[in-house]
């Protein structure tokens, strides 16, 4: 049983959960949105700075949540920094698929390293009720990029 749980709560997740990177609202923000998980009542906010060329210069978040959602948000902000909006969209879709489907996710070769890093979150597949915890930050970022103020996992 502990082995199964360690699959879910891998070291990387515990580390990002405890010491989230890019936490706090930065000065320069071009896109932002709030995300809400009605099941637990947790809220997070995602802040992006996208430049004129459509490249994410900086990504950050704040708010509270479980270890999974905090770690996922933290990893996401690291991974999307420096990516084009097209790449961010591909990562979002691939990540979503990784969390919800069983098979391997086909990915654009140039993003293979990023998907490898995100693999630590794939354990949520075994815990359907926790998938939303892992995807909340990504939905929120997506909402911010679509110009919506609010994302929920419902």
């Amino acid at each position, binding site marked *: *049983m*502990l082995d*199964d749980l360690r699959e879910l709560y891998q070291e990387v997740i515990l580390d990002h959960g405890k010491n989230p990177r890019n936490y706090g609202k930065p000065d320069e923000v071009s896109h932002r949105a709030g995300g809400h998980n009605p*099941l637990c009542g947790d809220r997070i906010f995602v802040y992006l700075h996208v430049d004129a060329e459509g490249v994410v210069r900086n990504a950050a978040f704040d708010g509270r949540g479980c270890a999974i959602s905090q770690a996922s948000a933290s990893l996401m902000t690291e991974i999307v920094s420096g990516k084009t909006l097209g790449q961010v969209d591909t990562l979002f879709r691939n990540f979503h698929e990784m969390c919800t489907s069983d098979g391997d996710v086909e990915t654009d070769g140039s993003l293979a390293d990023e998907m490898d890093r995100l693999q630590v979150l794939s354990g949520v597949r075994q815990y359907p009720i926790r998938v939303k915890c892992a995807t909340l930050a990504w939905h929120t970022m997506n909402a911010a990029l679509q110009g919506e103020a609010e994302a929920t996992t419902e």
Partner: protein
Amino acid sequence: MSQAVAETTLDGANRSNLPAYDVDKVRADFPILSREVYGKPLVFLDSGASAKKPRAVIDAVSAVYEGEYANIHRGVHYLSVRATQLYDEAREKVRAYLNAAKIGEIVFTRNTTEAINLVASSFTGQRLREGDEILLTELEHHANIVPWQLAAGRAGAVVRASPVDDDGLVDLEKFEAMLTSRTKMVAFTHTSNVLGVVTPAKEMTRLAHEKGIPVLIDGAQSAVHLSVDVQDLDCDFFTFTGHKLYGPSGIGVLYGKSNHLEAMPPYQGGGDMIEYVTFEKTTFAKPPERFEAGTPHISGAIGLGAAIDYVNALGRDAVAAHEHGLLQYATARLSDMPGVRLFGAKGEKASIVSFLQDDVHPHDVGTILDQAGVAVRVGHHCAQPLMDRFGISGTVRASIGLYNTREEIDKLADSLHHVKEIFG
């Protein structure tokens, strides 16, 4: 919030004070309790959300469909008369369970939520004017907040909440001070679904009545664990839900004093709630039928009657004593564990312990306990204002039913060690 002080020691002494209560025999009445989850025995500590059903309830519901089912109040034929009789008997069982004065004071609803909405709309909503107030407490379940907000919103009235202290206890002085000439309704829970604290409902009702303000008591939790006497409480309305009382889901109860119910307009219109209908004018049936439009949950009401019979046969005092022993044991075991912080562990309590472990999020604790076969509820428990009051996002809640055991409390406490093993 302060660390709870254990009320009892862990030795077996208090066990012998309990009246004879054969919990193994009780467990054998609940088929679902013998199932496993993830290959482990189920340790079910979430009866506060919805309780498991004894064989007696399952059988009563099947027996209706197998042998006695028909629509009620509508037929001259044998089975319709028989189903109507069973439905009315169930209502009488509820009346006796609450010690209501009259059977007509018992209205069947879908659940507590619908019962509160009915009162908010057909009673309070009729009397609210702009600037009026509805007084609740900070303990309330969303079901006892949102219906009042809707009613208040339509009238330009406001909803206020009387504060609780750091242990979740209602401050009676502050409560009394908030009862003003603007207060048109008071509604509060009899037992907090988050903390298990029992409110001084009789005293609160008396204080409200001194100022002529009607009172609704949300008994969703208390009707399961306390012996409720609505005449002694003297409340105007009392609500509870069948599914937490070992009965079927989809059936709930509104008790209302007959003078109120008789003066109230219907909540919904339709069949079964009328006396006479023309396109020009309809006259309404008397309570309780006036508030039961359409075909009701016939088998649900009968199943609830069977659940009440079941609890009465075990003995409500014996059940309460068993649950109380477990609650004290759970409180003592958890407060002995390093890093565990209990919420609302003081004062009169019923069947619920709420806690956090270190700074681990309740959802993470819930997932880890679940893998050990231990079912608890985690999160805000539909009481977000109370979570805000304590400055937390949620808790882990273990709620105890009449079939739980000491071994299960031990399993809960022991499984919390896994949280430490993983989160360090």
